[in-house]
């Protein structure tokens, strides 16, 4: 029997601890394991040292690191719980020794191809949780002494602890990074709306499944979601990611928030059984004057009209989406959103404190919220409700404000030159033109003049790479004038029946000029209000 080189058991342990210290803190779990396994193999004078960890299903052990048998890692060698040498250790949670390695005792053929004759293995358990198996192998027939087995057991505990810490750290980092990725980096620009958001992780450690999302639909509607997946950590963050995507998908096909949440409920029951989430989902009409809202167990948003106290609108709350409740019909409430009104969505972490009842938190929030520009509004709400208090739970906050009625008689829109932008131009014109004194007739006509100019850009200005165009209008003295401008190359219209657009533009405006130069095409238009040409 080869004599192991190290002296006392204490010395050996010390050498393991050297490996687990802070110098290796930056290593990935696999690299850390390799370092540890190198030491263990050397101290036990073995030929191989290998770690298998439980996979996500909990049904298999997968070889995650090895010295002396690296091919097992590269081949992703795995063994079912209860089968083979490592699989039996997983079931018994007891150390085991094997002196006769062949296909009857070991499942993994790499072991006998490698010529392993003897194996000793221990379970990896940290805080009572089974993580995997550590084993060492020798190509000679060898008896492991009691002292060696005891050392292997202690080494296994160190390996388990280091693995658990590293995996928790990895899970935490992954969840945080997932959450950061999924929260919108920049909020979309919607003419007529201002918005701002905050996300603050709680002090309890780990992330939760809080999220917010804002997006436009091709129909010109604008949608906002706030939600909270019950649970914490990577699992909750992953489910949050899926629910966010599911809502976006259903939103494309439905103009009714209650229907979207009903579909989401079916989705989560089928694909994420045992998970549950609260969700608030709102859709703004293209005019921005009304918001359609459905609540699935989520807290009611605060609505703050311009220059008036904030209120919690009377919106019926339906059950959360997901497990445990019999599906019931969901409801949509339509709320008027006057110019200047701010709507604040939030997750419960904002108002729930251990020392304060929920109602008090809600009342405090309602008192704090005042309509105003969303960025300072969010900062103010966080300052007044969170301040320096430690918060257990994560907080997501989303403030959306309809701009107050414009006193500056100007409208500027910058849009992608794609057909879908035309509906957005019309929505913005329908909001803006009435505020500068346009009659219904003026509005109908200007929609076509500017719509045709936009359609020309979409069809003719750019190559397949696309581009943008800008609509800039000013109103003064019962006149609207302005430009529709692109940076493309002019190309004359193709196909039959194509000349009518320009003709319509001229018929419907009081002045119209189309100018092309190297910088692009500019359409100048002018229309006297209340006096149809």
């Amino acid at each position, binding site marked *: 029997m080869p004599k192991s080189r190290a002296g006392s058991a204490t010395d050996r342990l010390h050498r393991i601890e050297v490996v687990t210290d802070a110098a290796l803190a930056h290593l990935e779990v696999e690299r850390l394991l390799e370092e540890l396994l190198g030491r263990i193999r050397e101290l036990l004078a073995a030929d191989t040292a290998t770690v298998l960890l439980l996979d996500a299903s909990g049904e298999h052990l997968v070889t995650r690191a090895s010295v002396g048998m690296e091919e097992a890692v590269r081949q992703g060698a795995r063994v079912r719980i209860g089968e083979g040498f490592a699989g039996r250790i997983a079931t018994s949670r007891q150390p085991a020794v094997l002196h006769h390695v062949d296909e009857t005792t070991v499942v993994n053929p790499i072991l006998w191809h490698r010529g392993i004759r003897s194996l000793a293995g221990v379970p990896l358990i940290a805080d009572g949780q089974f993580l995997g198996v550590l084993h060492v192998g020798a190509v000679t027939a060898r008896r492991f002494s009691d002292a060696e087995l005891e050392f292997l057991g202690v080494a296994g505990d160190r390996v388990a602890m280091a693995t658990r810490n590293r995996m928790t750290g990895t899970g935490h980092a992954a969840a945080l990074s997932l959450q950061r990725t999924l929260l919108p980096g920049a909020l979309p620009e919607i003419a007529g709306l201002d918005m701002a958001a905050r996300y603050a992780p709680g002090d309890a450690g780990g992330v939760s499944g809080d999220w917010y999302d804002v997006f436009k639909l*091709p*129909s010109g509607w604008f949608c906002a979601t706030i939600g909270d997946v019950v649970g914490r950590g990577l699992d909750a963050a992953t489910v949050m990611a899926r629910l966010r995507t599911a809502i976006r998908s259903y939103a494309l096909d439905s103009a009714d928030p209650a229907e979207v949440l009903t579909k989401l409920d079916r989705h989560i029951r089928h694909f994420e059984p045992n998970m549950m989430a609260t969700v608030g989902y709102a859709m703004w009409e293209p005019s921005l004057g009304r918001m359609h809202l459905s609540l699935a167990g989520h807290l009611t948003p605060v609505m703050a009209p311009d220059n008036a106290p904030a209120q919690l609108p009377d919106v019926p709350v339906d059950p959360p989406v997901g497990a445990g409740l019999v599906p019931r019909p969901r409801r949509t409430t339509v709320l008027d959103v006057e110019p200047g009104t701010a709507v604040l969505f939030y997750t419960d972490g904002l108002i729930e404190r251990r020392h304060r009842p929920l109602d008090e938190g809600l009342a405090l929030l309602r008192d704090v919220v005042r309509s105003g520009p969303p960025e300072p509004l969010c900062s103010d709400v966080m300052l007044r409700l969170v301040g320096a208090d430690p918060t257990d739970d994560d907080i997501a906050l989303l403030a959306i404000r309809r701009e107050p009625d414009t006193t500056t008689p100007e409208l500027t829109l910058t849009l992608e030159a794609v*057909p*879908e932008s*035309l*509906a957005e131009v*019309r929505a913005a014109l329908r909001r803006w033109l009435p505020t500068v004194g346009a009659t219904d007739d003026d509005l*109908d*006509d200007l*929609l*076509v003049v500017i*719509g*045709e100019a936009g*359609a020309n850009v*979409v*069809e003719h200005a750019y190559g397949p790479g696309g581009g943008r165009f800008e609509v800039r209008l000013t109103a003064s003295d019962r006149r609207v004038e302005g430009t529709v401008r692109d940076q493309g190359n002019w190309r004359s219209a193709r196909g039959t*029946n*194509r000349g*009518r*657009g320009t*003709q*319509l533009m001229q*018929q*419907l405006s009081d002045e119209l000029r189309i100018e092309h130069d190297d910088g692009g095409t500019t359409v100048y238009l002018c229309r006297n209000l209340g006096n149809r040409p």
Partner: protein
Amino acid sequence: MTVARVELRDENDPQSVEIAVTGEIDLSNADQVRNELYEAIANDLMQVSVNLTGVSYLDSSGLRVLFMLAERLQRLQTELAIVAPPGTPARRIVELAGFDAVATLRP
């Protein structure tokens, strides 16, 4: 995408059909509206009327659909009428485009 609905009305008369279009027609959905109109019109009809009362936006791409429809129906010797009461956005556009030369305009 811009949304328009094309619906058949008055399906009992084997010789004529009224098709109601509602919503908006622009570059992004004109082809779809055209296809739905064509599908709604069988070749044994004598009369087709297209009701645009509920159309809140119509531009030259929508006009193109109507002119092409008029041309095809003329070839099929099927009569085409456009229903658009004065004051509606569609009425103004079809009038300005001289559509009354190829089809009947009805209030």
